[in-house]
């Protein structure tokens, strides 16, 4: 499963707490800009501990595509669509595939709908339910772009995007599409934010989307040496598998390591220990700045790597260790 040829990144797009563009993401991470957090209280009841989140700011007027399906869609669709449109640029093609990766999906509507079911079962809104389905954002995006071919949604940890890259390559190998949009997206909601803080109160949740337009030829940074999955079933196995991942990528020449550190030692320790024998260069940790963006996290790491390759001619290692399934890594080169 590790025999891929390089993928060409023809376009990138990003929506994050840093702003509604790749340039905003790149500036914030390179400058290690502090992005303030806000509190996200429960709706309809009280909570006696604080949940911090770094929300995506209000979009600039020209950044959100105009599409009738967006009127009812939740934020995760808006993020995915804006990132996708930025990545697509002028590369519109009838033969485009779409793969959207998420962890919680349309959690805000799911939460609202289920609270309605519990509060007043007979009055629960039929408008909300369809938007709770995991593939709603992919559907809206396909509708906006007019993509009627293969469109799929993968769910899992943030690094499930690594498998999406392979799926995109499979579709292109089989001639089903000429290019493929691969997107990782997530929205923050008080429910998911609260859930994350059960792991550790210091965790700050993020949200956003990263999009990569992939092809098998043409100009653009190359995504290569995709390694993984290094699958594990326990924390002990994770440590071993992370070492395997870093050893697999260690021989690759790179200028910068983009890791998955959150800034909370108990979560970051294993990844840092795995890289320490192999890496003593510059490390960028976008999740530390942007928050735990769940389905968007690894996508934003990859977009950042592509942006560094594109605008700074730097080769970036991307480390995606995951939390409870498997680790992946890759390199993005100019």
């Amino acid at each position, binding site marked *: 499963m590790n025999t891929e040829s390089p993928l060409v990144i023809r376009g990138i797009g990003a929506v994050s707490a840093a702003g509604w563009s790749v340039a905003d993401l790149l500036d914030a991470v390179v400058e290690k800009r502090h992005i303030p957090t806000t509190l996200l209280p429960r709706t309809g009841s009280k909570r006696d501990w604080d949940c911090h989140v770094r929300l995506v700011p209000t979009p600039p007027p020209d950044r959100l595509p105009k599409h009738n399906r967006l009127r009812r869609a939740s934020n995760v669709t808006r993020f995915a669509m804006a990132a996708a449109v930025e990545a697509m640029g002028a590369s519109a093609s009838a033969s485009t595939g779409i793969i959207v990766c998420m962890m919680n999906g349309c959690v805000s509507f799911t939460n609202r709908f*289920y609270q309605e079911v519990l509060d007043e079962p007979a009055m629960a809104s039929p408008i909300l339910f*369809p938007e*709770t389905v*995991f593939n709603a954002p992919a*559907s809206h995006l396909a509708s906006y772009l007019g993509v009627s071919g293969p469109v799929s949604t993968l*769910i899992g940890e943030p690094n499930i995007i690594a498998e999406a890259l392979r799926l995109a390559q499979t579709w292109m190998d089989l001639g089903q599409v000429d290019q493929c949009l691969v997107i990782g997206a997530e929205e923050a909601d008080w429910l998911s934010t609260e859930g994350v803080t059960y792991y550790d109160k210091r965790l700050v949740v993020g949200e956003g989307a990263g999009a990569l337009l992939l092809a098998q030829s043409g100009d653009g940074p190359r995504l290569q040496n995709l390694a993984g999955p290094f699958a594990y*079933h326990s924390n002990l196995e994770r440590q071993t598998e992370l070492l395997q991942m870093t050893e697999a990528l260690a021989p690759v020449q790179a200028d910068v390591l983009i890791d998955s550190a959150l800034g909370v030692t108990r979560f970051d320790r294993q990844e840092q220990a795995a890289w320490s024998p192999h890496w003593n260069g510059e490390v960028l940790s976008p999740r530390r700045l942007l928050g735990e963006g769940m389905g968007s996290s690894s996508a934003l790491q990859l977009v950042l790597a592509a942006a560094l390759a594109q605008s700074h001619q730097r080769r970036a290692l991307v480390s995606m260790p995951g939390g*409870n*399934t498997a680790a992946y890594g890759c390199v993005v080169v100019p």
Partner: protein
Amino acid sequence: MPQTHRQRLFITGAGIVSPLGLDWQENEAAFEADRMAFRPVELFDVSARIAKTAAFVDLPAGCLYRTLSARHEARVDRGSKMLLLALREAVAMARLKDLCGVDAIVIGTSAGAMMLGETYCRQLRKSPGRQSGQLSLVEHYQPQRQMTTLAHEMGWHGPVLLVSNACASGANAIGMAMEMISSGRARRVIAGGYDAVSELVFAGFDTLRALAPSGIPRPFDAQRDGLALGEGAGVVVIESEEAAAERGATAIGEAAGYCTATDLHHLTQPDPEGKAAIRTMTEACRIAGLRPDEISYLNSHGTGTPFNDVAEGSAIQAWAGDDTPRIAVSSTKSAMGHLLGGAGAVEAVICLMALRGQWMPGSLNIRELDPVAAFDVVRTFRRARVDTALTNSFGFGGTNATLVIRKA
């Protein structure tokens, strides 16, 4: 134009868990008896809902996981348990000693472990403070975490892909497995789908007025009033011809064609003409090298909602043309309900059962046939020659998928 398969793809094992039974044999017996599985919902409160019935799987009592204590198994959701049973049956049928040599597992689900998420939500409303047990629910609500537990049970350390394309998830998972092998990326892949009935999903379909108030789904009936939910899992082992031959595996069928397309008409309603469905049926048959008149049996998506059956019926007519009256069609959702993310995989296994047993399952509960059903509707269990089978899956979001399976 997609490439045709470079080599044949053999299905060497299959497993099925549905409201009709916990394995192949029990399901086959239920189809033969034209049995239905609908009963009042007791798992959660439906007093304020229009619909009151669904079809449920009666899981075996006791521990199902060999590697988990009873306390830890309590963290496993019902759907994942169904998936485990189907996976075990598929692996046993394929005569795989273990999962060494399997390159990937691809599983479709629409709701994952939704019931654990619902428990979390109900629990948090009881207190403003942090509560014990909530972390476990947050952790195990995640379907990928459930897959890790399953992988541990099976001693598996490879890639697991979770596909969530609503009601086409299971068919897409099998199709993706076929694509992995066709592209040379893999030689042997386990694929399937699962879902369990949950309160949120039941309420969702109910608020959309998609569930049958009568409690009985009647696909292709002129007076049909909606679908009924079901639950279950279907799993297949797919191998390249070469990989199957190397280990002397016996094929129970050939995964001959697959196509997916996206209906851009509406988030929940199908294009009335079923354009995407026409495309997937046409293309899947082209890949399989079959004409419509060469399809022995068509397992329809056939939910029993007014919109779906019109769209699918129209699409079948457009696809089959003059051969429409000769196409044998049934909807097994009439017996076991709509298994959502599991539907496509379970219905693929039903097609394999039809090929092996030389029978067609009935499309039950029809009183007066809808004129759109211009094909040969199989209304009760029928013994017949079945060399090829086609199954359709259509989901929210416009995901359409067609699988074509034939005798090996």
